[in-house]
């Protein structure tokens, strides 16, 4: 009996340590970053594009726009492709082929991000430079690379969402004279909607947080991009690029960038989780 209690206490401590890790990181980032945000002023920090740490200018607007542009591009590419794949694999493809392709897509998640970045620099960037113009290192290049990186997340969660729709719905619809495609877009996508939204938001979180691959292909210029062929710097790249030599206020400003990133990703995850929960509740209700 006493041994049982000991084990329970130990397991509880291990479980709580994950929470403690999150707490420590949160407190630390906010403690280091928040004072600078307030010292600079919310307006000058978020809505100014002047980032000159040497002169005391800490405006991160260009990076916020960079992050959003790259994330949006990634979701246009990866979200569309991933959802399309999920639809094909669950609705149209023979089950045997699907069970071969799904693990293959999931393998993409195991490739280190630096490899994606390297592939992007070696193949994608020259193609963009030669055929579309600009430096090649650009929003477009980062969007494509990130789009491929978010594919496994979007695809596998969307597949789970579509598979969670009861088979009887599908058959009921077909028995009412619907074709496969009509059933898919009029019934399945609606019934799996919340799961699919969760998949896309989780993919966005992943795209927003990715650093290495983006640094390698995005160009990292400190300016608001005028077109998809312009180079950009994202919030994550900014931290990674300058952390090595930053000190004092500069270092605080990088933490403040982290606070911004942290807040945005937390918001995304909360939205995704609430959608995912709604799916589960609906599933039970039926």
């Amino acid at each position, binding site marked *: 009996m006493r041994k049982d209690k000991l084990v329970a206490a130990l397991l509880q401590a291990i479980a709580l340590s994950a929470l403690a890790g999150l707490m420590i990181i949160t407190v630390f980032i906010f403690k280091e970053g928040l004072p600078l945000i307030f010292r600079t002023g919310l307006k000058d920090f978020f809505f100014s594009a002047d980032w000159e740490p040497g002169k005391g200018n800490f405006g991160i607007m260009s990076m916020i726009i960079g992050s959003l542009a790259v994330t949006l591009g990634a979701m246009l590419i990866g979200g569309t492709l991933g959802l399309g794949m999920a639809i094909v694999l669950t609705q149209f493809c023979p*089950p045997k082929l699907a069970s071969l392709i799904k693990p293959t897509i999931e393998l993409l998640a195991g490739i280190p991000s630096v490899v994606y970045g390297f592939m992007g620099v070696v193949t994608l960037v020259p193609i963009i430079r030669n055929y579309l113009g600009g430096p090649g290192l650009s929003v477009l290049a980062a969007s494509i690379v990130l789009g491929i990186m978010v594919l496994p997340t979007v695809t596998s969660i969307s597949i789970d969402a579509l598979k969670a729709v009861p088979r*009887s*719905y599908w058959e*009921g619809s077909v028995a*009412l*004279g*619907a074709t496969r495609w*009509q059933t898919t877009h*009029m019934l399945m996508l609606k019934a799996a909607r919340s799961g699919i939204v969760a998949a896309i938001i989780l993919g966005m979180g992943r795209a927003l947080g990715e650093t290495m691959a983006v640094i390698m292909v995005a160009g990292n210029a400190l300016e608001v991009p005028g077109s998809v062929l312009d180079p950009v710097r994202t919030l994550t790249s900014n931290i990674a690029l300058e952390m090595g030599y930053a000190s004092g206020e500069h270092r605080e400003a990088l933490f403040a960038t982290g606070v911004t990133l942290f807040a945005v990703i937390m918001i995304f995850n909360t939205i995704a989780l609430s959608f995912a929960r709604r799916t589960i509740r609906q599933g039970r209700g039926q």
Partner: protein
Amino acid sequence: MAAEENTPIIEIQNLTVTHFEKVILDNLSLSVHKNERLAIIGPANSGKTTFLRCLNRLNDLSQGFKVTGKILLNGRNIFHPATDTAQLRRKVGMVYAVPVPLPWSIYENLVYGPKLAGIKNKNRLDELVENSLKAAFLWDEVKDRLHMAARNLSGGQQQRLCVARVLALEPEVLVLDEPCSALDPISTAKIEDALFELKSRHAIVLVTNNTKQAARASDRTAFFLMGQLIEMGDTGRIFTNPVDKRTNDYLIGAFG
């Protein structure tokens, strides 16, 4: 009247169905007449459901089914490669054992099929909704809440909604797979009443595990056993004076 009653709408000729080498239906030949309610009875595993699912080719959607023989609907073989299966499934409407309301409102459930068939006129859709709900004896219970989620209806109401949903397709044949197996006696009675009214407009094929229901709610009865058609005839005759010993054994409860 008598002549019309005996006009076959569906003729099944030498239908054999195998599922992964296992024979489910064995060389079946029978016909379904216009304006009749045909009950199919038989113990579990005798191929009743598979037979129904052949009539609108739902078996196509599952793996491993192989079909030989012919099913003629109004003289045309439904297994012909040029058959439009979506069109066929509108003509041969199906109701399942467990009601499956789609995750929408009552109204949306009812107009889904007609909309797929290309009916866009709002008045026409409203009219179909009202007529089919009335025919399924559900109109009075739901007419004030057509936009409520269909799954909030009771089980019996859901099943009548499923009947109404199929009727909105204006099918020629209505096939029901044990439609009352999950229902209470009152809901069952309502469905049986609806079927009686409906036979003037649709041929009805009713699979049931409840022999009393077959006796109450059908004009002719077919007895299936292990994928074979043992006996078929007027319901009164089958129940009072079966020719085959196996039919008699089943009806008195000797097996199944």
